């Protein structure tokens, strides 16, 4: 098992460096993309900042808490985008038949699908965001306990695992239906609803975004744990959901892979 992890890590590093090389060819475009991402970040940051400057609370949270929900959302969103970019190329490889080549290689095909286009430049965006969060936390003067911080980090990881499981679910469905792009963009649009705490929404919508499409578990729950307002029931439920959903998605992948029909390569 350790050998397999080391083998796949080397492949991931190799592919990521190749993707980075391609990025460096188009330096000007890369700079423009980076600027666009920074403007996108500040668009919603400024909106929430100025909105909450006039309201005492929003869904029971003060300005600093609302901003922290947004920063947590961006953190997990960027992590998912960094590592799981390969999903955007999956449909193309299915319809062209190039997926057949991935199946013949000594690499786990699911790994090859999801982790093949990691953009190392996005890691710079992640680092910038992390620094921004640390700076924000120092100014916000939250009462941070070690327990809440640890729980926050563990639930961030759990959020990433649920996001990963969702992507596995989407590519599995994609093998049968070829509908990958619309599913992934629908997931991203639904995820965007978690820019602020789900408490903002109608209770039925909250339930839908927690139990059916687990956006709440990915993005809102870690921030709530940070503030120490998450009950033990929710903590256990989140971790259990993450593990069960991941196992289910992996099984679904195996099931769908056995029913894969090549488009011819």
């Amino acid at each position: 098992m350790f050998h397999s992890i080391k083998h796949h890590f080397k492949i991931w590093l190799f592919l990521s460096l190749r993707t980075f090389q391609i990025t460096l060819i188009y330096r000007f475009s890369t700079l423009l993309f980076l600027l666009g991402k920074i403007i996108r970040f500040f668009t919603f940051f400024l909106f929430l900042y100025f909105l909450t400057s006039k309201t005492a609370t929003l869904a029971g949270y003060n300005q600093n808490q609302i901003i922290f929900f947004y920063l947590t959302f961006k953190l997990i969103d960027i992590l998912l985008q960094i590592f799981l970019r390969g999903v955007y190329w999956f449909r193309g490889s299915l319809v062209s038949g190039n997926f057949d080549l991935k199946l013949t290689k000594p690499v786990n095909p699911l790994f090859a699908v999801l982790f093949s286009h990691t953009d190392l430049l996005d890691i710079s965006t992640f680092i910038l965001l992390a620094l921004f969060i640390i700076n924000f936390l120092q100014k916000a003067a939250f009462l941070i306990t070690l327990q809440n911080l640890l729980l926050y980090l563990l639930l961030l990881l759990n959020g990433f695992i649920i996001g990963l499981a969702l992507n596995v679910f989407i590519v599995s469905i994609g093998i049968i239906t070829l509908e990958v792009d619309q599913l992934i963009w629908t997931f991203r649009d639904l995820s965007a609803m978690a820019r602020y705490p789900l408490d903002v929404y109608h209770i039925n919508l909250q339930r839908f975004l927690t139990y059916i499409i687990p956006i709440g578990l990915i993005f809102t729950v870690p921030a709530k744990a940070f503030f120490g307002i998450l009950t033990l029931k929710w903590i256990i439920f989140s971790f259990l959901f993450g593990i069960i959903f991941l196992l289910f998605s992996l099984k679904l992948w195996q099931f769908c892979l056995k029913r894969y029909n090549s488009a011819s390569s």
Partner: protein
Amino acid sequence: MRKYTKLIRITWQQYFVYRVNFFAWRLRNIVFFLSFYFLWLAAFQNKNELFGYNLPKILGYIFAAQILRSIILGSRTADLAGEINSGRLSIYLVRPISVLKYWFSQDIADKILNLLFLTSELFLIFFLLRPPFFVQTNPFAIVLFIVSVFLGILLYFYIDFLLGLIGFWTPETWAPRFLFIWIIQLISGSIFPLDILPQKILSLANLSPFPYLIFFPIKVYLGELTKPQILSGFLVCSFWVIFFYLFLSRVWKKGLKIYSAEGQ
């Protein structure tokens, strides 16, 4: 004129080839709207007024913004750069059809379809949620609103077409478009009313053409501008429309001179 009407019908048919894509596109519009609708409801939970808006007016703003996003910012000219890079622009050049009118016809088709489906989606949302949103009853304000929307459509079309012409000089057209999209989202008023920004930032934004795409038409609709403000707004917007049209014509001529139809 008949050929452009036919083009509109063909564009509609293209949309319904991939029905799942179409359905997902409509769903994404609804999701986007709902995320702001509930946010503003939560903001007004303990407040009667924010940034000079009451609840009916702010909900009127976001309803109008949803409509204007679809009919002003919805465009097919994003495909233009790809056509230039691949050499397929030659097909349009040899046809007895104006390239500008061709793309504008496609845009109109896109906007009409958007408006039709959006109306039914918003009607459904209104039926389910019964929001107390502001409805303008002053016919003069409605006429001015329609004129400002028409100017906004022209303005965005010219700007977007200009972006597509980058394809004459470089294949890297998606990055400038991505940056441009987010600049527009920030300062057009499509995500939030620009009034919530401090006056200095708002003054800077007003130096650009972007507030005249969404923010200015909605303010006209809400009846929140004085007559001098409406007049100066129309004058500035008209200036930008003429400016971008003339600039576009020059860039188009320059682009055609170096166009080599690579790939054809």
